[in-house]
């Protein structure tokens, strides 16, 4: 499989849902039939609004959510891991190689542990190091890479600001020497001046440690800046995917266009150029048949309005995929 690190093949994730104990069991279609390939060393962006299924997909790739159908393959150097067919031993191995950075650095760190213990915990749990000395060495090493002082290691998380805490979370995720990182809204809780710092750090670590990222975010301008490839999700489907420059310069899907125009412009003279989308994202309990976006689409065609066009990506330009409803 050469240069791909992760292949996601026809993955769907459903959750069972029952409103109360006498009502009928229903299925929430959180993620539907997703196909993506994440290249080694790439910064893959996943954007979408809340409820679009981006976090569920990220967790499914990490093996933290059950995959209902399809499979995810992790192409390691020596062997491939199939996430849907993994024994406990494999899962342990996989967890060393794929890690998660959370959104909220205030909630993700235990207030009762020192920074050193927080960063060292994965090493101890996964039994990667054999002696305390070795653990300390690796903790110090990764802390320095994440620009934390040795003196910081003795302190507790409450003594740190948001940006510093996020650096601690990053150090904790990287200490097991993973190859693949899912960063789920990792800069969303930070102030802009700090956000830029963390983004630069993630970029720098990527080249230093040969990392591959799946970067989940709702902020298109952030994604446009750091990612090489971007997939736009809506209601459990990828509606458009492509190299980030191409996608942001030349968006094809009406949802991508609307999202881009909704970013408030920093120029006070350019007011209300947003393509206003009516209404809100429909419930994933009963998504509209056919194109899922048609209930909010600003310019629906006659065919798609009836829900007659099925969801499916078409390659309009090399590497640039658009859902067929809007591509036609």
């Amino acid at each position, binding site marked *: 499989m050469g240069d791909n690190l992760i292949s996601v093949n026809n993955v769907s994730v459903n959750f069972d849902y029952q409103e109360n104990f006498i009502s009928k069991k229903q299925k929430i279609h959180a993620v539907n039939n997703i196909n993506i390939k994440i290249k080694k060393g790439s910064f893959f962006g996943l954007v979408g609004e*809340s409820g679009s299924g981006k976090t569920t997909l990220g967790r499914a790739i990490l093996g933290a959510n059950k995959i209902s159908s399809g499979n995810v393959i992790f192409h390691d150097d020596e062997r491939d891991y199939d996430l849907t067919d993994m024994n406990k031993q494999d899962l342990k191995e996989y967890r060393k190689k794929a890690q998660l950075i959370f959104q909220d650095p205030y909630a993700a760190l235990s207030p009762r542990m020192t920074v050193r213990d927080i960063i060292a915990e994965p090493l101890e749990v996964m039994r990667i190091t054999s002696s305390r000395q070795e653990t300390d060495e690796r903790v110090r090493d990764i802390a320095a890479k994440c620009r934390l002082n040795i003196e910081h290691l003795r302190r507790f998380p409450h003594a740190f600001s948001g940006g510093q805490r996020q650096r601690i979370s990053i150090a904790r995720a990287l200490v097991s020497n993973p190859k693949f990182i899912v960063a789920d809204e990792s800069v969303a809780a930070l102030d802009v001046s700090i956000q*830029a710092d963390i983004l630069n750090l993630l970029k720098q670590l990527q080249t230093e440690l040969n990392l591959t990222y799946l970067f989940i975010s709702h902020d298109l*301008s952030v994604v*446009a800046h750091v990612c090489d490839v971007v997939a736009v999700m809506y209601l459990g489907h990828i509606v458009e995917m492509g190299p980030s420059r191409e996608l942001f310069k030349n968006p094809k899907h009406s949802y991508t266009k609307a999202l881009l125009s909704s*970013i408030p412009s920093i120029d006070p003279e350019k007011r209300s150029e*947003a393509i206003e989308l009516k209404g809100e994202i429909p419930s994933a309990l009963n998504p509209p048949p056919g194109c899922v976006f048609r209930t909010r689409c600003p310019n629906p065609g006659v065919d798609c309005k009836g829900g007659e066009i099925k969801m499916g990506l078409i390659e309009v330009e090399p590497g640039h995929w658009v859902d067929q409803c809007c591509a036609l």
Partner: protein
Amino acid sequence: MSHLLEVKNLDVKFDTDEGRITAVENISLSVDQGEVLGIVGESGSGKSVTAKSIMKLNPGNTSYNEDAEIILDNENVLQFTSKQDLKKIRGGKVSMIFQEPMASFAPAIKIGAQMVEQLLIHKDINKHEAKSISINMLKRVGIADAEKRFNQYAFELSGGMRQRAMIAMALSTMPKLLLADEPTTALDVTIQAQVINLIKDIIKEYQMGVIFITHDLGVIAQVADHVAVMYLGSVVEKGPVNEILKNPKHPYTKGLLQALPDINNLDAPLSPIPGNIPSPLDRPTGCVFRTRCPHHNPEGKDGKIEMKLIEVKPGHWVDQCGIKCGQNG
């Protein structure tokens, strides 16, 4: 003409176990009718504290300085002590929209009942009239089947809908001043665009004054007429929105703009402002921004230059230390 709201030399201090914290220092602002004042700054810069002072909503350990004045409609709010007086401002002349609408509605009381309750307190009307005002207001903010929503609880509404209901509730008493504290931060961009347009329409329609607090400079560019940039409890720069965003003078304002990823210029590097915002417990003397300032001049670095806004162009005020540093950068 006198301003609708005028804040003069306001200091806000909190007494805590660790000592007295200066949350806001020497702030002067004004808002006219039909005007939107945007307050922008990072977390901990004192934006919300300033807004809450206007309604005297800060907690019991707060102390205001004696010579501060918050003049709303020719009355000094800071002098108000009786419940009767405070009631006039809280929800009467001034309404507030909060960031997280789920946290600001009572979860176990129907939305309609909450709207009616506040109308009965502030207006001399009966329940029936209050209900029809509320339903009309819900319709005005774009909520479909307002009658049905009126009888629902906050958890039954989606995020965007809840924020609309919050706006309807804040506006139903026809306040003269609306305080919007990060009203769109918890929303998705497409919903944010809807809510921003709604707020702009409503301001035009009712001609109220608005203080719009946000950390997002893009949102500020879209809604505000004037902007005040706050850092660690002080206003470091203020002026007309065009002037501040296109011709910023203070290194902090410049830094904020440079740290913002711009979708139209993907080649520009993201430049963070170095360091962290200091704890309000050890607030720097002199220029508050000097510990992080990339271009500080020697005098500013020692904290010898006091904070003082100077008018560099008509209506555009910049902190005096910032003018000097800004020239170097």
